């Protein structure tokens, strides 16, 4: 449809637009490599001409425990989300449980509740249960971001599984649990990946629950690590930005490895095919 020349022009425009859009990301990298004494220079150095790794050394010294905690919380959230969402999605898609429609509506509404409100409610509940400042309390709280989304992804995906496949399993003598585990789940690999990706990313990025429910714990996530940096020494911006770069790594990895799952997750529910 398009001529080669106009295609090339579009590519150039596209590159420029992408560069503009990603400038803040570039700037984060640039500042993370800027030596402390050049930080407040006017004009600011547009390129890291004298790169320093002081910032990244600070990350190694100060932030490793935070990163480990975030990894733990992220993985825990993935497991909890999958365990709750996959069976429920299967039931809603194929087994028609009583009250399924109401449940679907509730899940939709649940995604609209502001995190800050949930956090305040959780604060009281966790205070009673003694879960404040604990990593697994944070896993529970973080999973509330992902579970409704997960159930809806699984329901949408599993609705597409042909009924013959399930009846074939039944005829072969597989019970519901067996059918779910050995037939439904393997076929739903894409949904499992999408839900895992997003629940990990959301738990990794969570700040609201971390700051309200885990402000004083021994194991605090990386978002609080950065926040503490900003609060304490708002001078060492190379260290802050270096931590930000490191905290962005999961997002970058996901984008490279699983781009189509990401796009699938963003559009899920919003567009009807």
């Amino acid at each position: 449809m398009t001529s080669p020349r106009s295609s090339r022009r579009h590519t150039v425009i596209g590159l420029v637009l992408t560069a503009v859009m990603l400038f803040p990301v570039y700037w984060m990298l640039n500042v993370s490599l800027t030596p402390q004494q050049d930080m407040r220079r006017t004009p600011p150095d547009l390129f890291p001409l004298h790169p320093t790794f002081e910032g990244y050394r600070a990350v190694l010294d100060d932030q490793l425990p935070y990163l480990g905690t975030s990894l733990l919380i992220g993985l825990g959230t993935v497991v909890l989300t999958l365990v709750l969402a996959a069976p429920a999605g299967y039931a809603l898609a194929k087994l028609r449980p009583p009250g399924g429609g109401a449940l679907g509506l509730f899940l939709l509404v649940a995604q609209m509740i502001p995190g800050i409100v949930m956090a305040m409610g959780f604060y009281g509940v966790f205070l009673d249960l003694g879960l404040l400042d604990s990593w697994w309390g944070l896993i529970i709280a973080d999973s509330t971001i992902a579970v409704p989304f997960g159930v809806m992804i699984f329901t949408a995906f599993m609705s597409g599984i042909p009924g013959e496949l399930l009846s074939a399993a039944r005829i072969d003598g597989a019970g519901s649990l067996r059918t779910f585990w050995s037939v439904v789940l393997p076929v739903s690999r894409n949904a499992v990946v999408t839900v895992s990706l997003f629940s990990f990313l959301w738990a990794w990025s969570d700040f609201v629950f971390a700051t309200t429910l885990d402000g004083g714990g021994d194991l605090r996530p990386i978002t609080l690590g950065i926040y503490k940096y900003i609060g304490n020494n708002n001078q060492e911006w190379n260290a802050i930005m270096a931590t930000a770069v490191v905290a962005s790594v999961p997002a970058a990895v996901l984008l490279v490895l699983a781009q189509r799952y990401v796009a699938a997750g963003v559009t899920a529910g919003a567009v009807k095919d």
Partner: protein
Amino acid sequence: MTLARVDRPRRAAAAKAAALDALPLRRRRRRRSRLTALAFVAPLIAYLAAFYLYPLYRNLDLSLRDYTVRSFVSGDAPFTGWDNFRTVLDDPTFGPALRHTLVFTFVSIAFQYVVGLALAVFFNRHFRLAPTLRALFLIPWLLPLIVSASTWSWMFNSESGVVDYALHVVGVDPVGWLTSPDWALTSVIVANIWIGIPFNLVILYSGLQNVPAELYEAAALDGAGAWQQFRRITFPLLRPVSAITLLLGLVYTLKVFDLIWIMSKGGPGDASSTLATWSYRLGFGTLLPRFGPGAAVGNILILIALVFGLLYIRVQRRQEA
């Protein structure tokens, strides 16, 4: 599979006997499959009750009682009805916070949508590198909010921020951005637009894939230019997807808390306070927490979000029907 085994003799008998006997069997099997279905959703229902409904109930309870730090722990705060709501509504911060919430939400959405749509149409041209560049556009949306927020704070820094430097280059006087009461809200809106563009781009782009290419070919034959094609074909056909995108964006943007809190803490003064940041500040932001009013603000925010949320559900249902 115990059911099948138990049923087998019965089934044989039923085959011999009248069809009447098959009825209770079918009913029993149906009840059995309902139980299975329930067993699969039971963990989710228990979870939702414990970690959605109960915290929300606690929040409602907080907003209806006069809590102090002491009674928060002991749990015997006196019931005060709508007092917290009255306190909040009479607070001088309420007006600005509500206004900022609406400005933040609607301005963000408008720009995210327009830019996202323009980019979606642009990327729909299928030029070389288009898929790669489109993927790169997702980055702002995937980054942890604290990363975007701290990066933008430094870019907006009033002494050595790159934004003021860029303005200086084109001959505009520097602006205090996050430290200026006139510009703080604008600063957080700019950052939020940046974060939200990818979401709009991806959804609108996938909506564009459903517009048949023949329509454009026919329009081009009839001599319609690019703008006319957009106005007469793309935009009208994209209306359902646009409605969903905008409403989802509304619901998401109303909730935004992290970005504003990290960048400006709602300040200076109340210059960039929204209902979400105000609620947090009341409940957690000071040494003397006021949980009751904080929860009341939160519940007002839920109410606003639900209005748009139910509108979204209505639109979505109607599109599916």
